[in-house]
């Protein structure tokens, strides 16, 4: 993020433009349907938040640099080069007014992946020095300290100690040859240690070997959110090195949407090679344990509950049925929100929005979309599977004075585990 300049910004945007981007810009007919899919536009009714408008500087660069027609227009002085002012004007649209949720990409009649383009244009904005302070801070901490929230290894070890004491199970650190390497997000380490506890108990019941790496415990990738591929690559590389050093078979992405996108989908492309291990989201692993009969639960939640699909996990990650199958094991009164699944509405804090203090007001306005969805189902409990969604939902619910507990799915499953400790063998307790 050093040496930022407009020229560098434009150069970085040019580098991001490939055949897919060019086909998207060539195909846009200005039908405006992307607006109808966007929570930021819907809740503000401000046309600037129309998704395709957020990438307008990139469109201009593409037209001026990569089309004959655009070059002709430039030569005739009919086009305006992208200026410092454009970067200043669009910064808020590119970062604050988009959670990279990808809902717009799913409704475009010509198939334009608009959120994918916003991810790309951020590379230019970060390089031009037009990224929000909050995200720059988070990314700097991720690189220098190892976690966007500033969580260091001693803090992780302390939490591990607390969890070990409370459940009387070992949380293995740096165990070579373990089958699974579990990644955590800072929020899970600091705010939701019950996640670590849940994983330990589930792994114990399933009889699987697992470990946390002291070199790469953090899964959040703020490099992806801010749009700096170099930093994103470094963060992915740490996980890859740790996983390959320990020789694990599978790396488990935590309940965090962008962490999953970063390590599962963008990671190999960032480091330029495929991994020597698999990457699975914790819900995929749980669902696999379920289908293999390794996940034994007892009792059912009585509360009327619904599930919030995190965008990066459901819409952009394809994990839609897994959480529902898992909820079926432990919940009696599960109801779907309108638009649930691949078309679910974002919590409003994804894509770095929640790490961007400046966007707080806009985020809470956009949260009204979620509020409307929740108002329609009238539930007692909200379940989700992304620590960032969870924090954003809790904040939004509090702001709008909605009394609704938010629970992580992994820990809900863990709460219903049949006790299989040596004193009480599984078969005695199983239903």
């Amino acid at each position, binding site marked *: 993020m050093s040496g930022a300049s407009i020229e560098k910004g434009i150069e970085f945007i040019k580098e991001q*433009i*490939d*055949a*897919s*981007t*060019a*086909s*998207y810009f*060539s*195909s*846009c*007919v*200005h*039908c*405006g*349907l992307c607006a*109808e*899919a966007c929570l930021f*536009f819907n809740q503000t*009714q401000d*046309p*600037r938040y*129309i998704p*395709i*408008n957020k990438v307008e500087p990139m469109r201009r660069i593409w037209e001026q640099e*990569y*089309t*004959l*027609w655009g070059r002709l227009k430039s030569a005739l002085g009919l086009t305006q080069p992208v200026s410092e002012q454009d970067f200043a004007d669009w910064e808020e649209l590119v970062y604050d007014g988009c959670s990279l949720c990808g809902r717009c*990409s*799913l*409704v*475009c*009649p*010509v*198939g*334009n*992946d608009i959120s*994918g383009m916003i991810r790309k244009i951020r590379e230019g904005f970060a390089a031009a020095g037009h990224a929000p302070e909050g995200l720059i801070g988070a990314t700097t901490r991720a690189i220098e300290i190892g976690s966007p929230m500033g969580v260091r290894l001693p803090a992780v070890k302390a939490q591990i100690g607390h969890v070990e004491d409370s459940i009387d199970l070992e949380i293995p650190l740096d165990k070579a040859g373990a089958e699974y390497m579990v990644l955590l997000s800072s929020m899970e380490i600091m705010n939701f240690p019950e996640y670590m506890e849940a994983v330990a108990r589930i792994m114990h019941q399933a009889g699987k070997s697992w470990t946390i790496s002291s070199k790469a415990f953090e899964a959040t990738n703020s490099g992806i959110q801010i749009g700096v591929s170099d930093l994103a690559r470094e963060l992915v590389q740490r996980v890859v090195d740790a996983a390959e050093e320990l020789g694990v078979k599978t790396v488990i992405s935590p309940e965090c949407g962008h962490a999953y996108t970063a390590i*599962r*989908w*963008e*990671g*190999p*492309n960032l480091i*330029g*090679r*495929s*991994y020597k291990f*698999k*990457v699975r989201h914790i819900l995929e692993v749980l669902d696999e344990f379920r289908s293999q009969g390794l996940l034994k639960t007892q009792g059912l939640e009585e509360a009327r509950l619904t599930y919030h699909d995190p965008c990066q996990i459901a*819409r*952009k*990650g*394809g994990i*839609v049925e897994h959480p529902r199958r898992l909820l079926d094991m432990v919940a009696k009164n599960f109801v779907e929100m*309108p*638009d649930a699944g*691949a*078309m679910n509405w974002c919590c409003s804090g994804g894509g770095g929005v929640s790490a961007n203090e400046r966007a707080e007001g806009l985020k809470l306005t956009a949260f009204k979309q979620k509020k409307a969805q929740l108002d329609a189902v009238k539930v007692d409990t909200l379940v989700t599977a992304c620590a960032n969604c969870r924090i954003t939902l809790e904040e939004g619910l509090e702001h709008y004075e909605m009394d609704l507990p938010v629970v992580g799915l992994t820990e809900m499953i863990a709460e219903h585990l049949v006790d299989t400790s040596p004193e009480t063998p599984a078969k005695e307790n199983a239903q």
Partner: protein
Amino acid sequence: MSAEALLAWARGPAFEVALVIFIAGMLLRLFEILSLGYKTDLSEARGSGVQGGLRTLFSRSLPRPSILAKEPLRIINSFVMHIGLLAMIFLFGPHVAVFESLLGFGWPNLPSGVIDALSAMTLITLVVALMLRLNNPVLRFLSTPGDYWAWLVTLLPVLTGYLAYNHLLLPYTLMLALHILSVELLLISAPFSKLTHMFSFALSRWYQGYKAGHRGIES
């Protein structure tokens, strides 16, 4: 110039020039897109990119139910307009004859009366499209001169074709000449306007569908 001479010119040299510009221009546009390249995805695939690409190529022709419920007029109007345009262009007897002379083979056509009704309907959808563009805040915000130009060069062939077929406004020969000239304007404009989407939509749907298929996600 007499109407007959104008018609002969429109049918002859003018049409050839327009056709060459259309084909060369579109090939250039597609080359501009494809030459930028697309990197192979190195992440472990969960599904088939090719299957996803093919699926999305067709699936995006139908709107998402939730969006249809929100914007029924905009979506249905555009849907009907595209069907009308395609039917008129490719299924009107005299047009099929033109294609046959160019390609060496033809195909069945729809009765002229049906095409006439479709033209009237398409004209209405084009008027509605303009009204929406002028009145809907989202569309007004997004609209550029290029959008109005694209609208105009799409409208003119439909309008002149309808007037010529029904012998309205001007003598038939003159109106037919104007119809053919308006088609030529459309052909020349297409590669340099958003009308490029008549071909590039297949690429954009393919790219997004390919990525989705690779990831095993809906698209």
